[in-house]
Each structure stands twice: as structure tokens, then as C-alpha cells.
């Protein structure tokens, strides 16, 4: 009788452990996905901010948010963005500047399934622009 009770308790315990393990496993899988998405967003936010803080004459010659309003060649700007966000490594699928004097597409890449657009204000060639960076999966 005692051994039967013990067996029932053991079985119940086993069922609970299996259920808990399954829950933890699916939960971890879910959080792993969320974390990678979160890490990707953190990277995108940080890199975009770093890109905006660069000044003309330093490093790769970006004039975004350049208070001195120096003239920067468009091709140098594109090259800087390409260097900062190499294709394949980062999910930057496009970078468009909507400026007072027109729209400029600096990194025209392929469209993705799930995209997130981060917008920042920037000065390109002395013109105020809304910089739209599109990150796609």
C-alpha cells in the first residue's frame, strides 16, 4: 500500500517535472527570439546614433548633424553608410533622407518581410533632413 502511494507521488512528481521542463523550453525558445530581436534593435539604435554623431573631416566624412555645415560629397556619404552598415552583417535595408531640397536614397537595398523604420533628424550638406533607416528581417 505504502509503495503504491509512493509510486503515485513519484509519477505525479515526474509529470510535473516534464510539464515544467516543456514550459521552460518553449519559454526559453520564445525569449531567445525576443532577445535576438531586442539585440538587433539595440544595435540599430546605437549604430544609427553613432552615424549621426560623426562630423565632416573626422573619420569617414559624414556631415550628419554637422554644425559647421561643410559640404560633403554624396558618394562619400553613401560610402560611409555602406562601411558602417555592411550588407549581410546588419539588417539595414534602406536609408532615405527627406530633406528640404528633395529626397535622397543612400542605401537602396531589398525589401524584407518584417521591417522597422527608425527616424532621426540630421543635417546633410547643411540641409535639415528626416533620416529614415529601414531595418528588415
Amino acid at each position: 500500500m505504502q509503495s503504491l502511494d509512493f509510486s503515485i507521488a513519484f509519477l505525479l512528481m515526474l509529470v510535473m517535472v516534464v510539464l515544467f521542463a516543456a514550459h521552460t523550453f518553449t519559454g526559453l525558445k520564445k525569449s531567445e527570439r525576443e532577445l535576438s530581436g531586442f539585440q538587433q534593435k539595440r544595435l540599430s539604435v546605437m549604430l544609427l546614433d553613432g552615424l549621426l554623431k560623426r562630423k565632416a573631416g573626422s573619420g569617414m566624412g559624414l556631415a550628419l548633424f554637422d554644425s559647421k555645415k561643410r559640404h560633403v560629397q554624396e558618394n562619400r556619404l553613401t560610402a560611409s553608410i555602406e562601411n558602417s552598415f555592411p550588407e549581410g552583417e546588419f539588417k539595414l535595408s534602406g536609408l532615405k533622407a527627406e530633406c528640404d531640397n528633395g529626397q535622397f536614397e543612400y542605401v537602396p537595398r531589398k525589401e524584407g518581410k518584417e521591417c522597422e523604420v527608425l527616424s532621426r533628424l540630421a543635417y546633410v550638406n547643411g540641409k535639415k533632413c528626416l533620416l529614415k533607416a529601414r531595418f528588415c528581417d
Partner: protein
Amino acid sequence: MQNGIYYLTEASLSLLLMSSFLIMVQPQQENQAEKISDLYITQCLHDVLKARFIERNPSITEMETDFRRLFPGKSGFVEVNNARVFIGKPGKQAISASAVYYSLYGKSTLKVLVYKE
């Protein structure tokens, strides 16, 4: 019989403990994601303020235009020297940023606030 109850109680307690650990871990990840969104919003608010410094013009109209471009569909307000312009309806949680601009004509206090919800 007593042994069975003892093991069952012990297993239940362990399960409760492990569950509580799991519950404690999950909100942290949510908080981290929220922190990044808050950081991004703060960066955008700083952009609105920085633009006024770059153009050397603490104009409330320009601030409102920049706000609407950076936060389409979001509500909040822009403020220059206690003159406030509201955009949209007030929400629940908010993030704000402020700066003081000094020029030959005096001091200007700039403030920008965005509602998260």
C-alpha cells in the same frame, strides 16, 4: 502514505520555487526592450532640441514641425519660455527633454515631451 505526501509536497514546493524564478527573469527582458525604445525616443527628443541650437533659432513653430516629423501620430507638447504648443491628446506615460539656449538676446528654455501611449 506519509512518505508519498512528503515527496509530493517537496516536489510542489520545488516547482513553485522554480516558477517564481522564471517569473522573476521574464519581466527583466521586457524591461530591457522597453529601455531601448525609451532610449530611441530620448535620442529623437534630443534631435528636436539640437536642431534649434544648430539653426540658432529657438522657434516653437520649427520645434512643432520637427516633432510632427519625428513622431507622426504621437501626442505631446513643445515649449519655449513657458509658451506651450500641444500636439494631439495627452496620454499616460511620457518622456521629456529640455535644454537652455543662451544668445545675445537672453536665455531661452526649450522643452519637448512625448506621450508613449
